[in-house]
């Protein structure tokens, strides 16, 4: 198809689609006035039943826990798939690239920054069900800490703090916690992924039953998975650099 033909097809299709969707959206309740019994139920379940101050965390890790479990495994699949798609004999390639790190200002920032970011990440993960935050958000912050090591240091330093087996083990542990808990509650007579631990006192870290466990597992899995994906891409970058240098010399 010519480019012109494609644009015609696109304009016809998108035009119709967007127009119809916009008119359909006009049939929605006015912005700000959608009353959802589901939302009220979720908030009540979070605060009154599970004593989780952050109702979003209660929905993510309890009421709709199965969605989150599957989504953890999607992340796991992505990390595995990235490794599969970028595979080749790169390990040796990457080691040979020039790797001298960045300037002193960045190094200084990194040294101070990495510690602070790790603490922030752990805090966000730990308090995920008490205040805004949670396993995902905190996990990504922790992965950023690893990225900071690379930015402020050298590629080799980064690889030293991110050993493949440790990351893979941590990621597997984080995702395995979900079906393990599910089968456990199933075996003990409750439903799969039922929240069987005591709810504790709302607003404190000791609350919300199994939510803190799943939250922590998620934080672990997300941090490891994103770091692994980062490792894959960086390895590819340095292998490319090495190949470029060899091409020149």
């Amino acid at each position, binding site marked *: *198809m010519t480019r012109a033909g*494609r*644009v015609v*097809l*696109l304009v*016809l*299709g*998108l035009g*119709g*689609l967007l127009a*119809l*969707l916009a*008119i*359909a*959206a006009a*049939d*929605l*309740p006015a912005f700000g006035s*959608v009353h*959802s*019994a*589901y*939302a009220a*139920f*979720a908030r009540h*379940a979070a605060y009154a039943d599970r004593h989780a101050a952050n109702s979003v965390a209660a929905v993510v890790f*309890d*009421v*709709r*826990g*199965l*969605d989150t479990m*599957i*989504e953890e*495994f*999607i992340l*796991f*699949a*992505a990390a*595995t*798939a990235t*490794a*599969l*798609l970028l*595979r*080749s004999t790169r390990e040796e390639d990457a080691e040979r690239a020039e790797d001298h790190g960045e300037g002193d200002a960045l190094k200084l920032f990194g040294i101070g920054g990495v510690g602070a970011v790790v603490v922030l990440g752990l805090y966000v993960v730990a308090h995920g069900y008490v205040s805004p935050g949670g396993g995902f958000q905190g996990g990504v912050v922790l992965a950023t800490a690893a990225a900071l090591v690379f930015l402020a240091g050298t590629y080799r330093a980064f690889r030293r703090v991110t050993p493949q087996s440790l990351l*893979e083990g941590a990621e*597997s*542990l984080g*995702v*395995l916690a979900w*079906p393990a808990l*599910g*089968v456990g509650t*199933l075996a003990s007579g*409750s*439903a*799969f*992924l*039922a929240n069987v631990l005591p709810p504790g006192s709302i607003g404190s870290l000791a609350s919300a039953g199994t939510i803190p466990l799943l939250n922590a597992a998620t934080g672990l899995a997300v941090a490891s998975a994103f770091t692994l994906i980062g490792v894959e891409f960086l390895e590819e970058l340095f292998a490319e650099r090495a190949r470029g240098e060899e091409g020149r010399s």
Partner: protein
Amino acid sequence: MHALVPLPVAVPLAVAAVLGAVGRFLPRQVVDAAAILAAAAVTGVSATLVVGTADRPLHVFFGGWRPHGGLVPGIAFDVDPLSAALATLAGALTVAALVFAWHYFEEALPLFHILVLLFLAGMVGFALSDDLFNLFVFFQLMGIPAFALTGYRVDEPGPLQGALAFGILNTIAGSLLVLAISLVYGRTGALNLVDAGAALAGRPPDLLVTAAFGLVVSAFLVKAGVVPFHFWLADAYSAAPAPVCVLLSGVMSDLGIHAIARVHSSAFAGTFAHREAEVRAILVALGVAGALITAVMSFLQADLKRMLAFLTASHAGIFLAAVALFSPAALAGEVVWVVGDGLAKGSLFLCVGFLLHELQDGDELRLHGRGRRLPVAAAIFVVGAAAVSLLPPFGPFLGFALVGDAAGALGLGWVPALLALAAAVSGAAVLRAAGRVFLGLGDRDDPLLSQQPQHAEREEPEDDVRRPRVALAAAGALLALALGLALVPGLPRHAVAAAAQAQDRHALVEAVLHGVPEPPASAPPQHVGVAAYAEGLATTAAALLLALVGLYRRRLPRLVRVVAGRVAGPPLAALRAAHSGVLGDYVAWLAFGSGLVLGLFAALVR
């Protein structure tokens, strides 16, 4: 029995997670065995669920969040014999694919097995879920390992192109689904299909409801590969390794159609009650058109995997038309057809994988006559082709017979005739290929057929004589199951009973929202009439005839050839040109297709 339901999802996930941590350090055989055992467990548990839900479906609420005052806060699985049968099919095909992959994929271990297990979990969950957002999540879990596995051979141009098209188009489909979820949730405040259906059923549909359904249909038709959402499928399935194709073609595509059926019957059938004829007309038209167009494309291919890819897309159109008849017999027939067809397509793809490995090529023309010394492969290939061409008494034929009955009862007898035609044309392509490859019939070249760059699925050659036999044994086993399926006593009756229960919205609402158990399933005995046998045989005969025409096209009278060339030439050329391989074109077609689907629904269903 309730406790069994989460297991077909949880077990492959758990095994995949363990393999992720320790798979690299385990010997090859242990990884293979673990994966095959997990897939076998899924198959076994799902088969148990098929039998265990024969009386009434199982509604399982995850996290223990039971329905409460007419609201379903938790995520529910709705397990009935039909959806459990699809889950069993997924498990069985995964076992076959993993057996085939034994020793065939030395590198990238255990990543391949991990992704296959995650793919399996995604398919099972997608088949069983009763929650709209949960369907989206499982849709993604199915898609991501799938398109990564499609790109397995990163060193060849085809897989990269196929994987990109697959990934991008399926992700856009996911976005369409999220838009639909926003609309449905905004209107009903519910994500559970039965809950939403109860909320929608009170009033006639307005644009919001029809737009939401149109989006859901478009999204799932991308997955299924029905025209004009099918372009990615041809590229992806011809590029993916053969064992992956077994899964993609054998069950993943058809799950898209199943999801449309389920979403319609649980959530939209109530509000569409007085517009059923219009909805049926749109979906049947899409299905029949798609089936015929992709069947013709299938006939124009020389690359065996691409041919089977278009065959898969064609059958997806057939299945869409079948479920769109909206009667229990049609749904039952469609599921039986899907299962039998999935097994047959799986065995065909395994044969092609075998040919690729033994003869280093997968192109019908280049393989001319080279299969003469492979009688077992030839037999399986020919029988598989006949099975998909509706040869009695295989599974596909049985499904077709039930669908034909349903269509006849609605006065739509022309629909099964067209579906049979589509099956004949695509089946003819495969029979023609069989004749050329295994018997050396026909010419060595044919400009009518599109060829693709040569690719082989070479792995480190091992002098292991058992391997080819294992591959063919797996293919033969699948085909035997396709035959055995149809011989199960009382299968049609039980299938129709299960379908009637699945479509009984009032009973579903009572069961899910208020915990009132459904009345036990029952249906009168179903007889496959002589007429159906005749139709099935006629379809197979037509396929054989078309195959011969394909092989000996040049021996037809000159006048016939010239006229055919003048009449069919330009449309075929345009059709072929549309399949340009260019990602931007495919996305434009998707935009056009979804605009068209929404437009049709908006215009006719009000």
